[in-house]
């Protein structure tokens, strides 16, 4: 077969997916591919566009694998829009090339933002929100502005509003409909979302139609509304819907829809069988799909069809969505508005916590048809699966949206209930069956599944389900519950802990020789190092331990994205003298470090090069600072509130207790990091119930809470003991922590540890408070030994010539790493992005 010439117009997310699908099926000896794209860069993740303002760079957003175009021998013409298609000659012409021939042509031209034709719409200072270039001009304009207004309160409008907010603008949203996200949400849901977004400082104007935009008095623009009102603003972003890029097709007399969109059949062919259309420019059955997942399906179907495979057909796509808008969970699935005849609603609202949930079920109450979730969308995946797979509703459907109260049974939908064709990853059309197959074929980690199936690699929303399926499948295969640390040790962390203690093993080498195989890896080495430290508390930089440590532990500092490190001195309880504050300031100034107050009541100094770490720490140690172990799986901070010393409500000295605890447990190595908090009264300003160990003062003594968590999956702590005195408090914490250290799994926080512990909190109470296992004294003694042998790792490091040798970038030169480059932002340094480094280089050589 001679080579087929394929021309693709548009290199957006969908065009790119087509290229990957096609080159995966046909080699460069079979196809010769040319791609034209109007934008100046290859495909990037438009879905994550807003993260550009939260610090992501254009490079971070790229979705093109490294060296993709070179390796697949694809000709990519960026910055070069196609301007005409000649169907007769089967050629296209671009701004720079004429008559490029094709055998098959693929239109992946996407869409453009609709700008309502109101008088004044194209004044200076009016923008759209679609590409990285759009964002760059908005960012530049925002620097000179105070107020920013988004026209359109749909999904994209709210994304744009978030971006304006991130840019520091006083943000307004103007929506024509009576509520936000009118397509996805009903009245009650839209109103609640509005309240929540307003609470975040965005002003929302609904039912407002803009009549014209004229010069303002205080600000450049004045938007005049049909109801007589007006709003003045510095800049305007339109987000009033999208329109398919179909002009090329229209000019070439390819059939387009009445209201736009290039018509396609089930193989994504247009009215010309040699021309395909995919993604947001395509119109199927009278519908445009403004989401990336349906576009990906089209890309695969078209690629298969070009390669001669007709097995897959497009038959519509699910438009369910779940997103986090400015931190507010919003989800809408299936028939959310209850349009199906006879449909019934179940409703749950909690105005205090700001939660609204609605289930739409069939008239006979047997099937879930749709749902709306605002404020808490944890059930989204389960509900979506139930609706898509027509899984019969449980006896009490309301249980699925009612909060679980203490003692209540956990709800949710076991993955085992799902049929094999259940769609798990909608971004990449991966079914449960495909994931199970990949597990059978040897994938044993989420990472491997991601590579093998692409599940979880786009928005990431399906990752928890992917993990559940993986675990369930592994359990079925019998690989299961063994919980092996990694391929080198057929033991769980808990078992290894016992082997180390009982066998008196002091090094990784001994443990490996006795109980493992191979040479170890980045999973088992740090885990064993932590066990050794928990058992014997030896200085972690001793040569025999150092190579085991993750770089953070090895250099006693957290590595940042550019290879520099951060420095977090311990500030017990968050209490710090003015003198010490001045030292931190002086050191930061001297070494030109970026300073930030952390979420843990201390100060982080960023941007230290590896060779500077000992110099900086020498000054800090001399001024009386100690390591804050921000790098270790160890105690981080004990957060305190100001307590009875100053606060008119405080009933005990929470700061004093926080300092006492932080000094007791500093440096303690554990399966994962540990955080504590002490509040002086029930107002709980130290957020102790979100910590691994939380303490709240009462008039009758301390209340002790355990196993709280913020972070990825917040969990409220459980009450372990009430009204106890100082000595009992310390005793219980000693026992609790040691018990966790002995039995916890690698990288398992106390919250997940408890959730997986048979018997739950009652069991912990028995072990810790009632000493049911009779190991209380032993646990306390173990802890006391660790407390007595504590040493500041940084103090040791700077006094040990052997360890100091490690703190340099080159083994054979004193030069610093020239790839570390900073630029100024808000009066401090930050790492330069790759594009900024490029300009720097160019300027240096110019």
């Amino acid at each position, binding site marked *: 077969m001679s080579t087929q010439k394929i021309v693709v117009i548009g290199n957006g997310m969908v065009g790119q997916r087509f290229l990957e699908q096609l080159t995966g099926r046909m080699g460069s000896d079979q196809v010769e591919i040319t791609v034209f794209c109007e934008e100046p860069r290859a495909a990037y993740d438009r879905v994550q566009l807003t993260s550009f303002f939260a610090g992501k760079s254009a490079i971070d957003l790229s979705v093109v*694998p*490294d060296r993709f175009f070179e390796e697949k021998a694809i000709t990519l013409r960026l910055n070069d829009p196609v301007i005409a298609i000649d169907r007769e000659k089967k050629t296209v012409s671009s701004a720079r090339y004429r008559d490029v021939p094709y055998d098959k042509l693929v239109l992946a031209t996407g869409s453009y933002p609709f700008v309502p034709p109101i008088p004044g719409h194209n004044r200076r200072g009016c923008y759209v929100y679609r590409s990285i270039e759009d964002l760059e001009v908005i960012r530049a304009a925002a620097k000179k502005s105070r107020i920013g207004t988004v026209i359109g309160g749909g999904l994209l409008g709210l994304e744009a509003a978030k971006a304006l907010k991130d840019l520091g603008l006083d943000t307004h949203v103007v929506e024509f409909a009576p509520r936000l996200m009118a397509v996805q949400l009903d009245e009650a849901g839209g109103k609640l979302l509005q309240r929540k977004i307003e609470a975040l400082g965005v002003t929302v104007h609904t039912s407002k139609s803009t009549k014209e935009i004229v010069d303002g008095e205080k600000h450049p623009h004045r938007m005049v509304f049909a109801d007589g009102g007006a709003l003045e603003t510095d800049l305007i972003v339109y987000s009033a819907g999208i329109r398919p890029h179909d002009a090329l097709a229209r000019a070439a007399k390819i059939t387009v829809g009445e209201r736009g969109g290039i018509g396609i059949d089930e193989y994504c062919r247009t009215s010309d069988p040699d021309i395909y259309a995919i993604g947001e420019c395509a119109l199927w059955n009278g519908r445009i799909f403004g989401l990336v997942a349906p576009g990906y399906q089209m890309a695969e179907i078209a690629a298969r069809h070009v390669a001669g495979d007709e097995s897959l057909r497009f038959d519509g796509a699910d438009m369910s969505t779940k997103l986090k808008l400015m931190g507010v969970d919003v989800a809408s699935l299936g028939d959310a508005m209850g349009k199906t005849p006879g449909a019934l609603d179940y409703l749950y609202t909690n105005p205090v916590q700001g939660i609204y949930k609605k289930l739409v079920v069939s008239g006979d109450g047997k099937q879930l048809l749709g749902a709306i979730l605002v404020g808490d969308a944890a059930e989204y995946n389960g509900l979506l699966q139930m609706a898509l797979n027509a899984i019969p509703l449980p006896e009490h459907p309301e249980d699925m949206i009612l909060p679980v109260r203490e003692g209540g049974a956990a709800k949710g939908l076991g993955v085992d209930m799902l049929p094999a064709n259940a769609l798990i990853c909608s971004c990449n059309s991966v079914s449960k069956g495909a994931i199970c197959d990949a597990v059978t074929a040897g994938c044993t980690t989420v990472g491997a599944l991601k590579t093998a199936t692409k599940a979880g690699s786009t928005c990431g929303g399906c990752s928890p389900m992917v993990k559940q399926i993986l675990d369930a499948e592994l359990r079925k295969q019998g690989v299961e519950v063994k919980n092996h640390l990694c391929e080198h040790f057929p033991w769980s962390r808990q078992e290894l802990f016992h082997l180390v203690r009982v066998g008196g093993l002091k090094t990784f080498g001994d443990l490996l020789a006795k109980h493992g195989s*191979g040479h*170890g*890896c*980045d999973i088992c080495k740090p885990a064993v190092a932590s066990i050794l430290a928990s058992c014997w508390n030896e200085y972690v930089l001793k*040569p025999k331990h*150092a190579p085991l440590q993750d770089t953070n532990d090895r250099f006693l500092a957290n590595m940042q994205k550019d290879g520099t490190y951060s420095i977090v001195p311990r500030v017990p309880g968050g209490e710090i003298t003015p003198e010490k504050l001045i030292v931190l300031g002086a050191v930061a100034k001297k070494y030109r470090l970026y300073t930030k107050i952390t979420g843990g009541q201390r100060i982080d100094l960023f941007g230290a090069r590896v060779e500077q770490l000992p110099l900086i720490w020498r000054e800090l140690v001399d001024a009386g600072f100690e390591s804050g172990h921000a790098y270790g799986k160890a105690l981080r901070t004990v957060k305190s509130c100001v307590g009875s010393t100053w606060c008119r409500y405080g009933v005990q000295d929470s700061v004093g207790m926080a300092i006492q605890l932080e000094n007791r447990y500093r440096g303690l190595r554990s399966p994962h990091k540990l955080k504590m908090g002490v509040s002086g009264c029930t107002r709980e300003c130290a957020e102790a119930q979100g910590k691994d160990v939380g303490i709240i003062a009462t008039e009758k003594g301390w209340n002790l809470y355990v196993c709280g968590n913020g972070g990825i999956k917040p969990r409220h702590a459980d009450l372990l003991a009430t009204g106890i005195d100082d000595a009992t408090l310390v005793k219980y914490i000693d026992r609790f922590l040691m018990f966790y250290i002995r039995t916890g799994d690698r990288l398992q926080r106390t919250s997940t540890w408890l959730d997986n512990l048979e018997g739950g909190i009652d069991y912990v109470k028995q072990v810790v408070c009632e000493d049911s296992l009779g190991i209380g004294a032993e646990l306390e003694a173990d802890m006391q030994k660790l407390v007595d042998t504590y040493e500041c790792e940084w103090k040791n490091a700077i006094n040990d010539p052997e360890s100091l040798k490690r703190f340099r*970038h080159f083994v054979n030169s004193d030069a610093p790493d020239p*790839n570390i480059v900073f630029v100024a932002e808000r009066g401090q340094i930050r790492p330069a992005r790759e594009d900024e480094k490029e300009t720097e280089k160019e300027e240096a050589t110019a």
Partner: protein
Amino acid sequence: MTARPNIDMSLKQWTAVCALDDIMPDSGVCALVGGRQVAVFRVSGDQVYALANHDPFSKANVMSRGIVGDLKGERVVASPVYKQHFSLATGQCLEDSTVKLETFAVRVNNNIIEVEA
């Protein structure tokens, strides 16, 4: 067109970078060799390997600070930033077949490590 003399254009040469004992077993250091950053690893049994120090995923020059070990019998180093594994022998990334680190010839001569670049 003028004919070019037939010389080796690579201009590669051996550079002594440090003593074997300057690298703890099962760890790495970064060496500056002819202006290039080379991560040199020593594994137990005193075998040495040399790879590019540039981590293609994070774009930071930090490969020498990764944890050294083996996966399914292949000696690897894990990137300290995002933890991808690279074969010490070939530079191949195990998680992504399209990514490979450059490798350098390396030898131990009288207890001194030499790298060719």
